[in-house]
């Protein structure tokens, strides 16, 4: 970036960015892929906590279970499951692109919408199954 002698950036118009462009499906899924990837990285700590709690004993496992049953814990778990479902499905979409499949705009838009819908459906179904199996108490 060109700067004046004072060091302050020149006040030029900036190129339009996320707030300006409309959101095509592929842009939304691309951003969501990165965001869910970062979220899942944080999720690895939860998996580590779960395994440690299992190994450590009944007291530690009780603390983990209580946190998982808490409404905030349930929301975090739902976001974790949805992130995993989305990143998995959209990752398969990326692998298809890598071998040259599905690049046409119509196809890419359709698979994008499909991935968003399927990931939400999967996450909701996963929680529905879990709740039904445990009689509405996770």
């Amino acid at each position: 970036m060109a700067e004046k002698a004072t060091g302050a950036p020149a006040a030029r118009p900036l190129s339009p960015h996320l707030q300006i462009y409309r959101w095509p499906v592929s842009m939304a899924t691309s951003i969501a892929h990165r965001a869910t990837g970062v979220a899942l990285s944080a999720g690895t700590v939860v998996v580590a906590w779960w395994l440690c709690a299992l190994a450590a004993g009944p007291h530690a496992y009780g603390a983990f279970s209580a946190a998982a049953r808490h409404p905030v814990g349930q929301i975090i778990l739902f976001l974790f499951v949805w992130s995993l479902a989305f990143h998995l499905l959209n990752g398969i979409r990326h692998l298809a692109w890598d071998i040259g499949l599905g690049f046409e705009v119509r196809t890419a838009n359709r698979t994008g919408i499909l991935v968003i819908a399927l990931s939400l459906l999967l996450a909701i179904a996963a929680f529905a199954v879990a709740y039904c199996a445990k009689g509405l108490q996770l």
Partner: protein
Amino acid sequence: MSVQTPLARVEGLGAAHSGTGHFWRLRIGSVALVPLSVWFVCIVLSLIGADRSAAIAFLAHPVNAILMALFVIASLHHMALGLQVVIEDYVHGEGSKIALLMLNHFFAWIVGAVCLFALARIAL
């Protein structure tokens, strides 16, 4: 007619000096994670509300313990490579970028060590 030196052409690493190594390792991890993630979602669904002894009995089975170890290793490998790209895209200060790239790999190794130790305690 290429302007590359013969050595550069033989090395085949291109302008970033790393070739397709990062790309390829990220893909290997993602292909492995397709079946492993499906397995993980299924076991989390069946175990998250279960009592501790049932969860331990499940993970103590050799097949499940090995699959869990593979899921943890493949996930953290894939995570380190993915977060590396995020850091390289958004962090521009040379010092903070190098520090974050190191912390990124330390994070993956520490979480991995903790997970595998806990898994060994459960399974052995």
